[in-house]
């Protein structure tokens, strides 16, 4: 794990108001040096505002932001050891690519030849070798993105801030840039903080993710924990798909014994129990891929329940089945990898569903 890394950014009870609107409601968190950190949440959750408090574009109403141990109160954006890649890239349209990348070096006392070398190196690093003389406004979306990266990284900031940098790209380009960003981050080793509303992007790229709702951090964890052990129904809903079944707690004694609709009596370990703040009542949750349809002759590895298929959605490599477990009201979504020779089942088919208590999460 990465716990031994020192702290790079620290938020201490950060509050932010716009007039009467409470945009950040007491953010307390630390981001470690050299980590790829993501702020994930729906639009309006405050993730961009939080990022901008690091950059110095937003004053905070109370609390403190520390970068590398130093208080940032009153330190303007141009004096902070951070650089930003903007959502719109903010490439200066009247300058060439090289002038854009070298923009931050204007006050650098080094001779022009060394600066030019630094610019060339930065361009090479982002895969734009030889593009220096081009007019910035003639670049494609992906190229602008790279120029923005080079322009920020050339100043060797302690922290690179990325505000939804991939949202303007098409799907293929986005996936390619995700990989390149991960590589780049490993190569330069500085802290990257990414703002995104795309949970998949956050899972793919980050060392740790802070999921934000309504100005608060709902959960801060590594991608696997976030996916497997979301600490609330809200987080579980936001990250991927999760099925929920009503449940009742029977006894608690180190382990928790519950009675769940469709699944019957279960014993869950303490780390499977989440103190959810939901109003929906106690429920059991599981991911679509953790339960499986048992075809003829297949034996459940753990437990099985009878069910009826109510909807089939064919996706090529996958098939999604909405199945209703016997004794439940709502259909549950299951995702099955399509294997050669195995048929896609029809709506109305009676089937057995195999599942495992270890993959369940209890929200209370």
């Amino acid at each position: 794990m990465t716990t031994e890394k020192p702290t790079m950014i620290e938020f201490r009870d950060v509050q932010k108001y716009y007039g009467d609107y409470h945009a950040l409601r007491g953010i307390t968190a630390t981001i470690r040096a050299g980590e790829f950190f993501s702020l994930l949440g729906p639009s309006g959750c405050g993730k961009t505002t939080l990022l901008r408090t690091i950059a110095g574009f937003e004053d905070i109403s109370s609390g403190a932001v520390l970068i590398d141990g130093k208080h940032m109160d009153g330190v303007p954006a141009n004096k902070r050891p951070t650089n930003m890649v903007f959502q719109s890239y903010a490439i200066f349209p009247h300058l060439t690519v090289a002038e854009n990348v070298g923009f931050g070096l204007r006050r650098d006392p080094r001779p022009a030849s060394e600066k030019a070398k630094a610019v060339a190196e930065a361009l090479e690093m982002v895969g734009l070798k030889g593009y220096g003389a081009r007019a910035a406004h003639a670049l494609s979306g992906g190229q602008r993105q790279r120029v923005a990266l080079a322009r920020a990284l050339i100043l060797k900031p302690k922290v690179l801030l990325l505000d939804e940098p991939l949202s303007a790209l098409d799907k293929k380009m986005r996936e390619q840039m995700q990989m390149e960003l991960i590589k780049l981050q490993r190569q330069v080793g500085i802290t990257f903080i990414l703002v995104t509303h795309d949970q998949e992007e956050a899972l793919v790229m980050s060392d740790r993710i802070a999921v934000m709702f309504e100005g608060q951090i709902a959960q801060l964890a590594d991608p696997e924990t976030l996916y497997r052990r979301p600490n609330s129904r809200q987080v579980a809903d936001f990250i991927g798909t999760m099925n929920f079944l009503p449940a009742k707690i029977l006894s608690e004694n180190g382990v928790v014994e519950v009675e769940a609709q469709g699944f019957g009596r279960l014993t869950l370990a303490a780390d499977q129990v989440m103190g959810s703040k939901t109003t929906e009542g106690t429920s059991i949750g599981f991911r679509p891929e953790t339960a499986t349809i048992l075809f003829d002759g297949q034996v459940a590895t753990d437990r099985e329940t009878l069910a009826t298929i109510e909807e089939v959605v064919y996706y090529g490599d996958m098939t999604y089945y909405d199945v209703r477990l016997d004794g439940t009201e709502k259909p549950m979504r299951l995702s099955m990898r399509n294997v050669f020779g195995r048929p896609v089942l029809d709506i109305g088919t009676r089937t057995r569903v195999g599942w495992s208590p270890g993959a369940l999460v209890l929200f209370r």
Partner: protein
Amino acid sequence: MDKGNSRGRFRDTEAAKGLMLVSPTALYATLLLAAPLFAVVVYSLMIDSKTGASAGFTFNNYIEVWTGKIYQAIMLRSLIVSMTVTLITVLLAYPVAYFVSFGVSQQRKALWLFLITIPFWTSYLIRVFMWKVILGYNGVINSGLMSLGIIDEPLTVINYSVGSMVATLAHAYAPFAILPIFVSLEKIDRSLLEAGQDLGESKFLTFWRVTLPLSMPGVIAAVLIVFIPTIGDYVTPELIGGGKIPMIANMIEVKMLKQNDKAMGSAIAVTAMVIVAAVSVLFLLLNKRFLKGQSK
């Protein structure tokens, strides 16, 4: 740090920066526009028109403006002329705006707009004068028609009349009417029109039920943009009307300068502003009604 305080500080700096930045422009407009207009209002309410002396607070000047036969006639003429001009200009402009928006390819739109705007930027005086030359007794039309043998004597109906004033003004403000209508037509989602025809409407009915209502804000803007300057026009009555068919602006000049009656001049000016404002508000309200009707 107190949260209320810092919130206040942030707002203060933003507001203060904005106010400071706008202050040179705002100050200029206040001193040289708001203050003079205020002075005019004061003149119209405080000065006796006959003696030119202070009369305390009085509505006498306004009573005279609103009841005097000459004033009524001139104001009515100004209204009729500018409304006719507005009607003609907007009616003539709509098809052109429609053509540029729907019938011209995207690349050539800018060229058309440029061609339409150029005349507006050439000397207004010269353009007005050209109409005098065109419409005059020995003017281009009469001499042209006579040399072609179509008429034997100069037509007199076309010179020094309200009609020739209307023609001149309608020409002068044509580009003003086209641009706002064009803008509102451009904003119309083209798929709406296809939807209209898809739902079985004829081309004409689609225009009548979809295009025209959606372009109404532009039409109303065009109406205001033509109406406001024409009602206050000075040059056309002076040149085309030969000074014999005065409108509000000419009357203000006569009172203010030739008769040195600042009180009456001011009262007429304020009245003119009130008329302009009233008509504008009426049309803006109409516009609102239209927008509301659409959102229903």
